[in-house]
């Protein structure tokens, strides 16, 4: 698999403030790369550096295998982007804004604009000036603008900001479609773990300008085992029954009210029956898995090893 984005020890300093420090990341062709980090972690700055809008103070960037230098414009033809809250020419209509975009990008395909507006479910408002748009509509229009030239690489900074829950779900499936059907490579940043977790193939965790970890979702999923959590008012009895009567050894008592069973061999029904028959007061049984959130918190709290390069 080829790498569309590759940075080496990329840094950006504003005066005394280090905004991005020694980031070496790789985004491979055809994947959705989730950029995860709290506000102010340097996600937007990094994306702006990829677009050549902000010049690095150290390190280097390669896009599509070519080094990005001040004045390089070729790779920009192949990139769609939405950085921060999207800006438009407010007095122009949605359609005029997209037309201008296509003209500047040198992209001419009839129906491209209509198709993009359909993909983000913005139909029937093409003729409205953008200044009348709500936050969510602007966000959708921003995505439409980013994808209307069918770019190979899509940089999206907090793309679901301002969308309602339904919109978030639609956008999520749109991103998956863009990747699977149109073969686009996506770099999506977010501070919302749950979002990234659901969509990304690879995750880069950025904190205070440093790339803490770059890891594939698959390896996170496989390394984190599922567990079944029993809520009970009598954890001691519960533990005894599990151990002595049901032959389950791989469990952990959590506080005074819960017992977690890892890699359970029996079904949930069998477990439930076993507990009830032995008079364990069970209030709930839930199957859970370690979420990315826990993984992420572990990483940032533990001050995890800085992954300068992979």
């Amino acid at each position, binding site marked *: 698999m080829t790498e569309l984005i590759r940075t080496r020890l990329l840094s950006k300093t504003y005066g005394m403030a280090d905004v991005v420090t020694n980031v070496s990341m790789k985004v491979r062709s055809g994947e959705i790369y989730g950029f995860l980090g709290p506000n102010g972690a340097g996600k937007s700055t990094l994306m*702006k550096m990829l*677009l*050549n*809008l*902000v*010049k690095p103070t150290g390190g280097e960037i390669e896009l599509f295998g070519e080094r990005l230098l*001040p*004045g390089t*414009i*070729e790779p*920009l*033809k192949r*990139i769609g*982007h939405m*950085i921060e809250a999207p*800006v*438009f*020419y*407010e*007095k*122009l209509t949605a359609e*005029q804004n997209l*037309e*201008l*975009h296509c*003209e*500047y*990008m*040198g992209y001419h395909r009839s129906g491209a604009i209509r198709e993009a507006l359909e993909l983000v479910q913005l139909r029937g408002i093409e003729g409205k000036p953008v200044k009348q748009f709500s936050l969510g509509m602007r966000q959708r229009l921003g995505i439409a603008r980013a994808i209307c030239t069918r770019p190979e690489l899509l940089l999206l900074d907090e793309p679901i900001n301002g969308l309602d829950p339904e919109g978030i779900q639609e956008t999520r499936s749109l991103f998956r479609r863009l990747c699977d059907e149109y073969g686009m490579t996506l770099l999506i940043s977010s501070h919302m773990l749950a979002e990234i977790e659901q969509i990304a193939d690879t995750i880069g965790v950025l904190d205070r300008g440093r790339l803490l970890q770059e890891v594939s979702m698959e390896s996170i999923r496989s390394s984190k085992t599922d567990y079944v959590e029993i809520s009970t008012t009598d954890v001691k009895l519960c533990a005894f029954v599990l151990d002595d009567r049901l032959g389950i050894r791989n469990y952990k008592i959590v506080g005074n009210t819960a017992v977690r069973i890892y890699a359970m061999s029996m079904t949930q029904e069998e477990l439930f029956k076993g507990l009830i028959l032995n008079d364990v007061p069970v209030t709930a049984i839930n199957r859970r898995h370690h979420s990315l959130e826990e993984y992420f918190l572990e990483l940032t709290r533990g001050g995890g090893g800085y992954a300068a390069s992979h």
Partner: protein
Amino acid sequence: MLHLIKLELKKGRMTGYLWGSLITYGVILGFLILIYMVEGPVQEEPIFQSNAEMLGLIDTLIRATFIIYASVLLSKLVIGEFQNKTIALLFAYPVSRKKLLLAKLSMVFIWTLANVIIANFIIGTIFLTLNANFGYVQGTVTSGLLINHGISIVTQAIAAAGMSLLPLTIGMRKKSVPATIITSVLIVVIVCSNNMGFSLSSIIAIPLSLSALGIMLTFLSIRNIDRIDVA
């Protein structure tokens, strides 16, 4: 380049520009007619000694107006894009930043140049016709006078177009619209003010060298545009 200019016109709506200049012509013309009609019949101290002086005032007024008008255009085309952050959009396009800015600046240059010449032609003609009927200003209109004035208008228009870019150098520092416009007003006050029939712009070397300075400083200020950060 031509394509980029076309896109700029699309962005700013071309009819708006045309109306803008037509209204400006009207205001200048109205103002001059007011002076001519009110002051003209007073014979003791005529407002204009000659046709040349009358045409000279018309030219000065037109240049002053369009140098300031140009600063408004600069604010809209260049400073405005920085303020509205749309510049981040433009600079992420596969188009050289220098070309983008040159397209905008040449629009301002051509706009000022064309308007000064066209306005002089229209308003000057109207006034000569008017005066042929009312005769408040003495003297005959010779072809020599017209040719001399024509040459002067073209050189002054070139000078004005170059000078109209000067405010950008100041305005770009803080990306400020007021700074841009105030600079243009200052330039007008210095160059176009008329003191007992004398103004700095009548020494043609002064406006022409200011024009050259305007063009030079503009080139200097966009020379490093590829290296700047667009936040």
